[in-house]
C-alpha cells in the first residue's frame, strides 16, 4: 500500500501548449482521490502521467515513496480502468484478467486463484469464457475492473470509467466502486467530469481548471466553502447563483465593500413576502420558468431592473446573466410571470473578489 504525491508537476506538449501548469497534491495511503473538472482541464493528462502513459515535463510524481518519473507503466505497480475499457477483444474474460499476471511471470495456480476471486467479487464468474463482444456495457465495465483488481496494485487509476454507461447503471456502479475500494483499501485516483460522481466518491476532491488545481479538500468542505467562483459553479447542481456587484453596493453586506461577486446556492434562497433577514441578501424576481422534478422544484427568475447584468458563471451559457435559480422543496411554486422575492441569510452568502478568486469570509 502506498500514497501518491505530485510535486509541482508540469506538462508542456511539443507544440508549446501547457496542459498542466504546476500541480501539487498528495493522496494518502488507501484514500480515494477524485480529479474533477470540465473537459480539457488536464485531469486525464494528469492521470496518464501518474500511469506513465505521458511523460512529465518537470516536477516529480512519487508513488509509495519512490519517484517514478522515468519508470515504465508496467513497473509502477499501478492498474488502470479506461473509459472505453480497452479490453483485448480477442481474449476471453479470463485471459483479459490473466494477461498482465502472465506477463509478470506469475505461477499458473496463483493466477487462477486471483482471477476467480476477482470474478467472484465482481459477480462475473459465469462469464469467464466469453469474449468482450458478448458482454453488456456494465459487464465489460466489471471485467475492466477485474483486470485492475487481480494485479493487486499499489494504486488504482480510473479514467472516467462510468461515462459509457447509462444513467441508472452509472449510479449502481458508482456505489459498487466505492464499496470495492473500501474493501480493498487501495489508494485510488479517479477522473471524472461529473460533479455528482466526484462528490459521492471522493475522500479527497481535486477540482481542476485550465491545467491548474482550483481547490483541494474534503468534498463537503469544498461545497460549503468554494475557493473560487469556478469551483462554486462547477460543484453543485444546479450551480450557485453568481452576481457581480459594484463597489459600495449597499445591497451586498460586505464590510469595506470594494466590489466583487456574490454567490448564493439555489437551496439557500427562500421565498418571502417580507424583507431580507438582517445582513442577508434580497432578489426581486420575475418568474420565467418552473421545473418540477418531484421532490423539489426549481424556479428560474430574472432580476427586475438587471438589464446590465454580467454573466460570471464558469460555464458560459448555463445561466443567462441576471437569472437566478431558487430551489424549493416539494411541488408548490409561484406562477410564471409572477413577481417574487427571494432572500438568503448572511451566513449562506459567498463573496469573491472581482476576478472570481479571493474568497472573503464574512
Amino acid at each position: 500500500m502506498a500514497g501518491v504525491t505530485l510535486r509541482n508537476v508540469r506538462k508542456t506538449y511539443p507544440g508549446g501548449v501547457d496542459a498542466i501548469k504546476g500541480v501539487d497534491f498528495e493522496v494518502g495511503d488507501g484514500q480515494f482521490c477524485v480529479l474533477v473538472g470540465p473537459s480539457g482541464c488536464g485531469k486525464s493528462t494528469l492521470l496518464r502521467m501518474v500511469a506513465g502513459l505521458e511523460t512529465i515535463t518537470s516536477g516529480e510524481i512519487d508513488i509509495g515513496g519512490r519517484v517514478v518519473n522515468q519508470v515504465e507503466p508496467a513497473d509502477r505497480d499501478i492498474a488502470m480502468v479506461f473509459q472505453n475499457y480497452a479490453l483485448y477483444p480477442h481474449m476471453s474474460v479470463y485471459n483479459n484478467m490473466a494477461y498482465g499476471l502472465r506477463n509478470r511471470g506469475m505461477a499458473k495456480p496463483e493466477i487462477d486463484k486471483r482471477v476467480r476471486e476477482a470474478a467472484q467479487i465482481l459477480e462475473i464468474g459465469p462469464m469467464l469464457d466469453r469474449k468482450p463482444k458478448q458482454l453488456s456495457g456494465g459487464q465489460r465495465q466489471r471485467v475492466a475492473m477485474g483486470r485492475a483488481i487481480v494485479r493487486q496494485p499499489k494504486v488504482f487509476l480510473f479514467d472516467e470509467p462510468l461515462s459509457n454507461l447509462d444513467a441508472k447503471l452509472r449510479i449502481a456502479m458508482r456505489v459498487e466502486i466505492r464499496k470495492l475500494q473500501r474493501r480493498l483499501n487501495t489508494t485510488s485516483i479517479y477522473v471524472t467530469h461529473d460533479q455528482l460522481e466526484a462528490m459521492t466518491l471522493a475522500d479527497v476532491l481535486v477540482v481542476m481548471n485550465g491545467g491548474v488545481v482550483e481547490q483541494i479538500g474534503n468534498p463537503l468542505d469544498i461545497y460549503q466553502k468554494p475557493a473560487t467562483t469556478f469551483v462554486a459553479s462547477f460543484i453543485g447542481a444546479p450551480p450557485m447563483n453568481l452576481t457581480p456587484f459594484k463597489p459600495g453596493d449597499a445591497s451586498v453586506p460586505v464590510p469595506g465593500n470594494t466590489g466583487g461577486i456574490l454567490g448564493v446556492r439555489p437551496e439557500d434562497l427562500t421565498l418571502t413576502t417580507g424583507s431580507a433577514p438582517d445582513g442577508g441578501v434580497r432578489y426581486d424576481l420575475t418568474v420565467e420558468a418552473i421545473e418540477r422534478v418531484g421532490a423539489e422544484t426549481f424556479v428560474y427568475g430574472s432580476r427586475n431592473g438587471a438589464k446590465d447584468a454580467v454573466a460570471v458563471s464558469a460555464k458560459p451559457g448555463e445561466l443567462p446573466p441576471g437569472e437566478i435559480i431558487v430551489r424549493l422543496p416539494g411541488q408548490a411554486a409561484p406562477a410564471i410571470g409572477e413577481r417574487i422575492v427571494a432572500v438568503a441569510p448572511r451566513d449562506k452568502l459567498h463573496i469573491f473578489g472581482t476576478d472570481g478568486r479571493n474568497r472573503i469570509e464574512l
Partner: protein
Amino acid sequence: MVENEGLQRYVAHAILWIGIAIVAFPVYLAFVASTQDNAAIANGHMSLLPGGHFIETYYKTLFVGSSGTTREPVGTMLLNSLIMALSIALGKIAISILSAYAIVFFRFPFRMTVFWIIFITLMLPVEVRIYPTYKIAADLNLLDSYSGLALPLIASATATLLFRQFFMTVPDELLEASRIDGAGPFRFFKDTLLPLSRTNMAALFVILFIYGWNQYLWPLLITTRDDMQTIQVGIRKMIVTSDALTEWPVVMATSILAMLPPVLVVIVMQKLFVRGLVETEK
C-alpha cells in the same frame, strides 16, 4: 416496395440468368472440350455435351504433358504456380505487417519519408519497369528461381497501406492497457496486434493468392526452363503451334486446372475475398 412484385421480378431473374450464362459459357465450353476427342474438336464439330475422355485427358495433362511444344506435365506447372502464389501472398503479408507496425506504433526519425517511399510503389505495376527489373533479376542470378518469380511482385505497398489503415483504428487504450499489463513491443505485436489482424490477413491472403497465381508477364520473362514455368505461361506455350497441332482437349483441361484453385478460393472464401477486394482498393 409494392412495385417490386410481379413482372419486375421475373425480368430481374431473367437478366441475372442471362448474365450468368454469358459469364459461364466460355468455361462450360472449355470443360466440355476437355472431355472430348481432339479430332472432333479440330474439324469444328464438337458436341456441346461432355464427352467420355475426361479421365484420359486430365491424366495426360497432369502427369504426361502436351505433345505440342513443352511436354512438361501440368502437375509441375501447378506446383510452380502454387509456390509462387504462396510466396507472394505470405511474403507480402509478412514484410508489410512488420513495416506497418513500425510506421504506426513507433516514432522515429524519417518515419514519414519511409512511409512515402513505400507508398509511391502503390502506383506503378511491374509492367512499366519490366525490362530493367528483368535485368536486375538477371544480375542477381534470380532467373529460373522461385525468389526471382516472387520478389519483384512483392515490392508494392497495397498490403502495407491496408495494415496501416487497420492499425490506426486500434484504440490507443489497447496499447496503453498492454503497457500497464507489462507487454513490450514484441508481446503487444504477438499477443494483441496479430490476433486482431487475423481477418485482415486472411482477406489479404485471398486477394494476394489470386494475384500471384494469375501473374503472367513477369513469369513469362523470368522463366526460361520448362520445369520452372507457371501454368499461365505453360498454357500459352501449348498453343504456339498452328491450330492443327494444338491439342485442344489438353489446352482446355489446363485452362480448367489453371482457374480451379483461384476460383475455388473466391467461391469458398467469398466473404474474405469481397472484404479483401474492397479493403485493398481503398
